[in-house]
C-alpha cells in the first residue's frame, strides 16, 4: 500500500492511511505505473464491469468484420463459417475484371490530394484565427460554424453546374475540390485549436532570435502540431476515401471512378456476387485500416487538445 502510494503524487502519500479505497489498486497488482495513475479514481471498478460489456460490444464490432473477410476468402457457394478452403479468386476477380485496380488508384490520388489541400489551407486559416485579431474574424468564425450545417449532398445540382462551367466534370479535380471544401470548416476549427495550445511565447522567443514569422512557425509551431495535423489530415483522407456521392455525380466514365462507387455497382445488381462484394469491401478497407492503425494513438490526444467543442 505504501509502496504504491509513493509512486503517486506527493500530496496523496500523505493520505496513505486514509480510506482504504483511496490508494489501493486491484489487489496483487504491481505498483501502479505513471500511465495508470491518470485513472486511479476508477481503479476499484470490478473487473467484470469492464470486461463483460466490452466483450459484448467487441462481438458486435467484430462479427461484421469477420463476416466480410469470411465471404471474401471462402469459395462461392460454401456455407462454412470458417473461410476454408481459402481462395483469393474473389480478389483477383474484382481487382482485374471489376477494375478495382483503377478505382483504387483514383481513390488514392483523390485522397492524398484532398489531404494535402485541406491541411495546407486549414493550416493557414487556423493560424490566422489563432494568432491574429482582424476585422472580419467574427464573420469568418460564423461562416465556418454555419457551413458545417450545409449538406454537400443537397448542393449536388449547383455544384455539378459549377464544375461543368469549369470543365472539371469527369476530372478527379472536381471531387478533390468538393471534398476539400466540405472538410475545411472543421479542419480550420481543429487546427486553430491546436495552434492556440502552442504557447505564443515560444514563437516570440524565436523572433527574438531573429527568426522570421514563417521560420518561427516552421521551426517552433509545426513540430508541436504534429498530432493535430495527423488527426486533421487523416480525417480528410479517410473522409474522401469513403465518400461516395461526389464521385458518383461528377465522374461519369468508369476509368475515373473511385472505390465506393465501384462497391455500389457491385451491390446494385439484382444478382449480387457476394464474394466479389466482400473482396471489394476488404480492398476498400485496407488503406483506411492502415491509416487508422497508424493514427490511433494520436487520435484521442488530438481531440482532447480541445478543439472539438468548436
Amino acid at each position, binding site marked *: 500500500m505504501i509502496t504504491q502510494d509513493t509512486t503517486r503524487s506527493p500530496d496523496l502519500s500523505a493520505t496513505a492511511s486514509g480510506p482504504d479505497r483511496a490508494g489501493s489498486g486491484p489487489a496483487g497488482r504491481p505498483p501502479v505505473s505513471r500511465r495508470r495513475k491518470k485513472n486511479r479514481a476508477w481503479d476499484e471498478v470490478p473487473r467484470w464491469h469492464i470486461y463483460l460489456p466490452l466483450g459484448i460490444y467487441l462481438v458486435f464490432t467484430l462479427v461484421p468484420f469477420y463476416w466480410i473477410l469470411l465471404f471474401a476468402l471462402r469459395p462461392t457457394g460454401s456455407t462454412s463459417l470458417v473461410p476454408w478452403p481459402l481462395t483469393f479468386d474473389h480478389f483477383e476477380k474484382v481487382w482485374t475484371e471489376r477494375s478495382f485496380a483503377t478505382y483504387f488508384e483514383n481513390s488514392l490520388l483523390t485522397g492524398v490530394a484532398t489531404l494535402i489541400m485541406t491541411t495546407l489551407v486549414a493550416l493557414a486559416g487556423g493560424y*490566422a484565427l489563432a494568432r491574429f485579431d482582424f476585422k472580419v474574424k467574427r464573420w469568418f468564425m460564423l461562416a465556418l460554424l454555419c457551413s458545417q450545417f450545409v449538406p454537400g449532398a443537397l448542393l449536388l445540382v449547383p455544384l455539378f453546374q459549377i464544375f461543368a462551367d469549369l470543365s472539371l466534370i469527369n476530372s478527379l479535380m472536381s471531387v478533390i475540390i468538393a471534398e476539400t471544401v466540405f472538410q475545411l470548416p472543421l479542419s480550420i476549427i481543429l487546427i486553430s485549436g491546436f495552434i492556440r495550445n502552442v504557447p505564443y511565447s515560444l514563437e516570440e522567443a524565436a523572433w527574438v532570435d531573429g527568426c522570421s514569422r514563417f521560420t518561427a512557425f516552421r521551426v517552433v509551431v509545426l513540430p508541436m502540431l504534429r498530432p493535430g495535423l495527423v488527426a486533421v489530415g487523416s480525417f480528410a483522407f479517410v473522409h474522401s476515401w469513403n465518400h*461516395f*456521392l461526389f464521385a458518383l455525380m461528377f465522374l461519369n466514365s468508369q476509368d475515373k471512378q473511385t472505390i465506393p462507387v465501384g462497391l455500389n455497382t457491385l451491390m446494385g445488381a439484382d444478382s449480387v456476387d457476394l464474394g466479389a462484394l466482400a473482396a471489394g469491401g476488404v480492398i476498400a478497407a485496407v488503406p483506411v485500416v492502415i491509416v487508422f492503425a497508424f493514427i490511433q494513438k494520436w487520435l484521442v490526444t488530438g481531440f482532447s487538445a480541445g478543439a472539438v467543442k468548436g
Partner: protein
Amino acid sequence: MASAVAQKTSGPPRPLPRPPGRRRKGSAPRRLPYLLIAPAVLLMLGFIAYPVLSVFYYSAQHYNPTKPWRNGFAGWENFTAIFTEDTHFWGTLAFSLKWVSVEVSLQLLFGLALALIVNQTFVGRSLGRALVFSPWAVSGVLTSAIWVLLYNSQTGITRYLADVGIGEYGTSLLSDTGTVFWAAIVADLWRGVPFFAILILADLQSIPKDLYEAAEVDGASRIRQFVHITLPHLKDAIILSTLLRAVWEFNNVDLLYTLTGGGPAGETTTLPLYIAHTSVEGRDFGYASALTTVAFVILLFFSMVYLRLSKFGGETK
C-alpha cells in the same frame, strides 16, 4: 522549441526586436491574416455560398431539362406544391426526424457507456480501444456492403441463426417493412457509436484527475462522482456533439442510399434522399431546389440552437 531556447541562451544579449511581421514591412502584419484566410474564404465562397444561393434562386424556378416547355419563373409554386400536393414530402420528413432522433440518442447512450468503459484502466486497454473504435474508419458505402452481406436472406446471419433454431430461413431483414428500420439503425450504430465514444473519451480525459481524488478523499461514491463531476464536465461537449451529429445524420445519404436505396416502398427515404432522387433521377431541379430550401430552414433551426449553445463569439479558450 529546443533549438530556439538553446540559441537564446547561447547568443549575446540583444535588444528585443519586435515581431518580425510588424518590423519588416509596414503593412504586412495587417494584411497577413487576410492573406492566410483568403484560400479558405475563396473556396468556401465559390463552392458553398454560391451553390447555396443558386439553390434559393432555382427554388423559385421551374427547371426541369425533361420538361423544357415549363421552365421559367415559378414564384411560390414549388413550395405550395411541396406542402399541399406532394404525397412523399411529409412521410420523408417524418422518417428523417424519426431516424435522427432514434439514431442520435442511441449513439449518445452507447457512446457514453463505451467511452466510460475504455477510459478505465484494464489489461489490454489500447488493443480494446483500437478494436472497438475501428468501425469509425469504415463509413458510408463500405458499412452498407458489410451489412448487406450480413443481412442477406440466403447466406446472411439469419440463415445461421435459423440453423440453431432462432427465426426462419429466408428472412430478409432489409426488404421487410417491419424490420428494415431497425436493421438500418443497427448498421448505422455500428459505425456511429465509436465516433461518439471517441469525442466523449477525449473530453473525459481532460477532466482534472485531482477532482476525483478530492471527491474520493471526501468519501464520495463512484456514482456520485459520475453525477457531480463527470456529467457536468461533459455537458457542453455532449450537447454540441449531439447537435452536430444530428445534423450529420440528417444530411448523410451514403448509408441509406446504398443499404436500402430508400426502400422497401419508400419506407426508409429521408428528406435528403428524396431530394437526391428528385434531382438526380427525376431531373426536376427546380422542385428539388425548393425541397432543399425547406431542408435548409430545418437545419437553420439546428444551427441557431448550436450557435447559441456554443456561445458563439465568446472566444473558445
